[in-house]
């Protein structure tokens, strides 16, 4: 048996600092919102001429007066991603096309064009925030119905930890937040809950079974009993996600990366946050039996 409980305090301090650092990052550095939430235009180009470099493309486009324009390679040397913010020019996409055809002789293929107006991006951001809030609220209600309040608190703290730290990491690395990241965060919420609930289920079962074991020890037993399941499921999920990350194309990179972080944090938090909350609240057999009577 592994003594997970030896490190409860140390990892609690670590998690608390991670959450604080993440919150500071989110407040002061903020998130790198993509065009879905900030509005603007994104163009993915593929050149048939291998001699075209990102610098020459950048020089050419920056002369077009489209404001702050970002040009970079996307996945490989012949794919480019152009981004710029919303501006007065409604025909910017068409003008870029004409300009590029003129300057580089029809060697660009427009693979993807996305344009999100300011009104739509505000709405998307709002609905994204609402979606995550509703998800957290629903999980809270579900866990509240299923378990005693101490368990609910533990699960929700684990959940907030995972979401905050994942977003914090995105802020730290400057990774782009777009619609698919919202989907990833929601899936993380589901996964983290899933993981926590399975361990809690065992904790509760063991609480009923043993009246003489303290919660500090009991959580450790429960974690160990469910450990191989926790690991196997995390591994198969990570295998699937890694496969999406490496082979699923550029579009799914951010999504799968967020999910990978989320699964790792989710697995960690169900052991080191959810359970320590039970220990700190000194949950005992009485807690569970009282509920049973009700």
């Amino acid at each position: 048996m592994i003594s997970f409980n030896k490190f409860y305090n140390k990892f609690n301090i670590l998690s608390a600092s991670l959450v604080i650092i993440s919150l500071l990052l989110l407040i002061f550095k903020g998130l790198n919102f993509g065009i879905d939430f900030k509005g603007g235009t994104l163009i993915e180009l593929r050149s048939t001429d291998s001699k075209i470099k990102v610098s020459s493309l950048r020089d050419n486009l920056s002369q077009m007066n489209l404001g702050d324009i970002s040009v970079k390679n996307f996945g490989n040397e012949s794919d480019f991603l152009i981004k710029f913010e919303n501006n007065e020019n409604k025909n910017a996409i068409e003008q870029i096309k004409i300009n590029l055809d003129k300057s580089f002789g029809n060697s660009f293929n427009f693979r993807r064009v996305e344009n999100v107006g300011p009104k739509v991006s505000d709405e998307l951001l709002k609905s994204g925030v609402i979606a995550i809030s509703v998800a957290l609220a629903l999980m809270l209600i579900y866990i509240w119905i299923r378990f005693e309040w101490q368990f609910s608190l533990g699960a929700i703290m684990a959940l907030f930890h995972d979401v905050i730290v994942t977003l914090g990491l995105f802020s730290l690395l400057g990774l782009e937040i777009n619609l698919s990241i919202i989907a990833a965060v929601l899936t993380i919420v589901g996964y983290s809950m899933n993981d926590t609930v399975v361990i809690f289920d065992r904790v509760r079962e063991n609480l009923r079974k043993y009246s003489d074991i303290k919660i500090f020890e009991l959580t450790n037993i429960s974690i160990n009993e469910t450990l191989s399941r926790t690991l196997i499921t995390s591994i198969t999920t990570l295998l699937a996600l890694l496969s999406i990350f490496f082979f699923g194309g550029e579009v799914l990179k951010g999504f799968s990366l967020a999910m990978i972080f989320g699964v790792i944090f989710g697995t960690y938090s169900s052991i080191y946050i959810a359970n320590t909350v039970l220990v700190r609240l000194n949950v005992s057999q009485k807690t569970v039996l009282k509920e049973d009577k009700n």
Partner: protein
Amino acid sequence: MLYFSKLRIIFIAIISLFFIFIASSNFLKFNNEFLNKKINLGLDLQGGSYLLLEIDNKPVVEQKLQNLTVIIRNYFKDKNIKVTNFKLINQNLFFTSDKNFRQIILDEFNSEDSKINPYYQRFKSHQLEIIEEDNFFKVYYSKQGIVNLKTSSQDQALEIVRRRIDEIGTNEPNILKRGNDRILVELPGLDDPMRIKSLLGKTANLTFRFVTNSSEDSFGAEKLLFEDGSEEAIVSKRIILSGDNLLDAQPRMNNDTNETVVTFSLDRVGAKRFGKATSTGIGKRLAIILDGKIISAPVIRDTIATGSGQISGGFTFKSATDLALLLRSGALPAPLNIIEERTVGPDLGQDSIKAGMIALIIGFVLVVLFILVKYRVFGAITNITLILNLFILIGILTLFEATLTLPGIAGIILTVGMAVDANVLIFERIKEELKDEKNNLIAFDSGYVKSKTAILDANITTLLAAIILFFMGSGPIKGFSLTLGIGIFTTLFSVYFIARLLTVLYVSKNKDKEGII
């Protein structure tokens, strides 16, 4: 838990076979209509354009209020009440009247059977609100009035947008209302949205009006620019003909001048008016105005009584074709703005399908190998279940002809990764049970029973997340929540029916085998 009746086994087999069959119709051709179903590919996989259009209703409100001035004036004139000083400011109409008539005017507006201000019985609201301030009246659209106006202009705009898109002939466009002032257009397989965008971006409000020399015209006059911006002209506000009078419009080559023109034919009313205008106005210039810009302003040389004519204006064949198309399909009730656009080229779509499939296969193989190494015989059972699970999932998507997006494929891959969880929970539990229980059958039975709540909990939480995503998410993300959500049900089915059946078959033959799992 471990008993399966013959009936149940047959039921499981039929369901599995049914979905495998349905799933295979994506790859095989059946002549049967019911079987010939396919999963729809989302725009991100097959390529195409997604456009969200917003109707700018402000000009409509202003136009309606402008028209209202004449109606109000005439209505009260008949009642010998003089209303004057009409002013339109910020979508509010102001006017004044003699003090003695104030109450009568208010009553006329606020009565439930008002002739000038329709009353919506259902919503207990008038179309217009009227407020009396110091010495003038303020009239504006009520909340319900605005809603009705928006709904009707959305209906009209939808019809026009559909006509324009049908004229271009893209395959299977999807044109839907969103809210009460938006229209969603999905155009699969379209790789150059520029033309559609420019066609949808034009109101195509066509009028024929005389050019006047001064602003003394009794109907009022305005200064308008020519299309090419080169010059401007003062044009009467009196409309001789409008786009409503057109029956048909076609691009043509004028053989005399070697110029591309748009020919048009008019309906009866239009032909009469055109004939009258051209007979009285010989020598005058008749301006042809599209969306507030003059296309051309030819001098009338002869009376045109045939009810047809042509518009020239330095067109290329392409621009003439587009103008003819716009005129045929009619004018939008209000300007449309494209507020969101997402276009994926067909080759990126192809690449995405390829990448998605490769990721699915690799992810699947990795998971299958890992489980096989970990659980041996039961790993094989889990893997068979996993394959069937995948078929059932694809079968359901096919049956409902659901739309598969790239995130949707990610949802399937994720389902593969998480689907084994239920079996792992069961097997791990059985392992624990076997520590105290030597009878394999009993241990398996209690393993299944005791893991049930954890499995349900785990799946409900993921399902909740998927449901929220389905209702809040848009387009591709919806596809993700769909496959993830359906995947939960197929997983539970395959774990509790297929995997359990296989497990039972194996365990009942190896009742006393030690270290069975």
